[in-house]
């Protein structure tokens, strides 16, 4: 059976176990005088039997599905005649793909050497076998463990406590999965970054002011020596993020103040969802809006003023990104301002303060830490934003602070480094990982600061 089908079968078995556990607990309770003589409700006995049936079986299924491929490969390689034994890892994977192509019929057997054809047959047989073993094992585990869970049902058994603690572990496992995924990403990026620093010096990467990752693909190719200085990229990112925040923070904050303090219920009910819709527009749409509408407009405007402006400018990308980020700032600030207790507003108004004085002197200072947290989260969004800058900011790694010039950002360079055919051990490709790691570090630090500020703020009112 395929793993997916087997999963369904296991689910059916779990449901059966639930039903059996439920009825067994009821029938055990009958002679005692009803279910109130059970330690827990019949639901919990059923759930306990179901957990016994399901969890071990699913673990076995998951482990088998995870490792069967690798084990079968090893067995197939191991059975090859000595003269066919692959010398390196690369050869092994080539050979394996050839074998599996033959096995699947993509490569007619006539085109392959006899040992390969043999291996392919072997592969098919092993897969068949593995599927059988897996089916038998999983069903057997489900039935046996389920039976164990079922037969152990006693009226005195505190099934509820057991189910509760098992559920706690299941929830923990889900949370751990998210954390482990993050850790996995960090490690994979970290290892590639370390490999990158084996090829390019630490000093050049952090302090180099020139970025041109065009390295030779082959040893005999004539090409420029690549330069991997990340300074122009980070200044580009900072420039665009700063422009974005210059747009997003005032507009977002002031609209949050308007919505939370001045707007009537009806206006708020219309404007707030509309404003939040900005966050729902795909960034690629913002991207071509920036590239096709805003950037030409800015360069024409600059030209009419006699200023030299590039057709792809940091200003266009940053401005459009700022508009995209407005809802982040306004939504979070709105929440924080609304969280300031009404009693503080009343207290200030009752002293004869006007609405704007109340805003300025009481509500804003009280909400400031939360607003700062929101702004920092928006900054990390701006730093990580890719699509708009890919389309509107350009690719030239200029080291400039002029917003009318074309700049490039870390994210844009990661995209260009990794798209197309690449060798996965050249400095060029590995540079993408190093840049990713730096970006990750920067946003991580910003997020930590933001969370810290938000948390500190929360303590103040509770």
């Amino acid at each position: 059976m395929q793993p997916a089908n087997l999963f369904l079968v296991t689910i059916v078995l779990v449901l059966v176990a639930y039903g059996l556990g439920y009825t067994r607990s009821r029938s055990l309770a009958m002679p005692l005088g009803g279910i109130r003589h059970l330690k827990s409700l019949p639901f919990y006995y059923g759930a306990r039997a179901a957990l016994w049936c399901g969890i071990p079986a699913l673990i076995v299924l998951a482990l088998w599905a995870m490792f069967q491929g690798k084990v079968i490969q090893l067995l197939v390689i191991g059975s090859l005649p000595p003269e066919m034994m692959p010398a390196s890892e690369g050869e092994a994977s080539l050979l394996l793909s050839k074998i599996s192509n033959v096995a699947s019929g993509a490569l007619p057997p006539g085109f392959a050497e006899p040992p390969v054809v043999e291996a392919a047959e072997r592969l098919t047989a092993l897969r068949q076998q593995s599927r059988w073993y897996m089916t038998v094992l999983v069903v057997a585990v489900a039935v046996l463990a389920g039976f164990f869970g079922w037969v152990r049902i006693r009226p005195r058994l505190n099934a509820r406590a057991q189910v509760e603690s098992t559920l706690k572990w299941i929830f923990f496992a889900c949370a751990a999965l998210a954390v482990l995924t993050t850790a996995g990403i960090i490690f994979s990026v970290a290892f590639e970054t370390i490999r990158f620093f084996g090829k390019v010096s630490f000093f050049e990467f952090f302090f180099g002011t020139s970025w041109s990752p065009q390295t030779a693909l082959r040893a005999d190719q004539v090409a420029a020596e690549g330069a991997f200085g990340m300074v122009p990229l980070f200044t580009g990112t900072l420039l665009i993020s700063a422009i974005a925040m210059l747009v997003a923070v005032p507009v977002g904050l002031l609209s949050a103040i308007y919505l939370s303090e001045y707007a009537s219920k009806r206006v708020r009910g219309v404007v707030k969802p509309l404003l939040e819709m900005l966050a729902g527009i795909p960034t690629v749409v913002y991207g071509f809006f920036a590239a096709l509408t805003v950037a030409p407009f800015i360069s024409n405007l600059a030209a009419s003023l006699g200023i030299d402006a590039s057709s792809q400018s940091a200003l266009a990308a940053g401005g459009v990104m700022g508009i995209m980020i407005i809802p982040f700032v306004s939504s979070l600030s709105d929440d924080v301002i609304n969280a300031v207790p009404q009693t503080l507003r009343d207290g200030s108004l009752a002293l004869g303060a006007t609405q704007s004085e109340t805003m300025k002197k009481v509500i804003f200072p009280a909400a400031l830490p939360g607003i700062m947290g929101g702004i920092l989260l928006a900054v990390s969004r701006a730093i990580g934003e890719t699509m708009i800058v890919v389309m509107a900011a350009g690719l030239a790694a200029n080291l400039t602070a002029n917003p009318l010039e074309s700049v490039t950002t870390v994210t844009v360079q990661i995209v260009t480094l990794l798209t197309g055919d690449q060798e996965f051990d050249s400095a060029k490709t590995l540079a993408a990982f190093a840049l990713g790691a730096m970006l990750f570090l920067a946003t991580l630090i910003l997020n930590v600061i933001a969370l810290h500020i938000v948390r500190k703020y929360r303590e103040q009112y509770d």
Partner: protein
Amino acid sequence: MSTMNTLKPAVDKEVGASRDTVVPAHEERPESAVIEEAKTVGKPFSDDPKFKLRNVEVFYGQDRAIKNISLDIARNEVIAFIGPSGCGKSTFLRCLNRMNDSIDICRVRGSLLLDDQNIYDSKRDVVELRARVGMVFQKPNPFPKSIYDNVAYGPRIHGLANRKSDLDDIVENSLRKAGLWDEAKDRLDATATGMSGGQQQRLCIARAIAISPEVILMDEPCSALDPIATAKVEELIAEMSESYTIVIVTHSMQQAARVSHRTAYFHLGHLVEVNETNKVFTAPEHELTESYITGRFG
């Protein structure tokens, strides 16, 4: 005033003459007691009124929360508003400094005069009104600032002090009047939210009197305080009654009896009875008042 005094509750009133006289069936009260609109028992009027309130009605959307109330609040008196929850006493109090303005659906009708000037005049400056009519709330609500800045908030907004030393004097005086100076003088820079509940409430009183209002409205000022803090605030009210007009809403009849000169009893948006406090508590004229103060409902 004399005409109102002679009015007695109309017992044999025609049922259904006004929708307000139809009382919900679940309302627990003596059969004979009927509230007649705008017929307040006792002495609702005064010769020297600070507030002159006539035919006041407050609506929340379609609901009439205050039903045609007429009342005078005399200069330098302490008047207590009592009544069961939801009877409109807080709503009525909040009309006196227009704190109801911030509620969109709230409308006020009738004539409300402070020193013969209309409170709800469209040209009326709310800022000036609230500077004259201060307010202390149910829950202590100091700003998350220092003790000093809390008291200095009002004077700064209204530009009452030109120099730092003037402001210092105002802060010290206000804290002294609120009986908080000795406890607070060494930690004026500490945040106000770190004080105890009773101290916070007295700080709010100090904050209110820092702008020298003429009237202080108190909306259940002791309901969040322990008995000792309550006693201190009540003492303070007694002292302040010499220089301010004080309107206090309270759920505690003992408190009304202790601090007020006159007591007004509200019921379902009606002002049922107003009289000298000792009279209300010893010889209430209206059956509803009697039922309430003897604890038959509330």
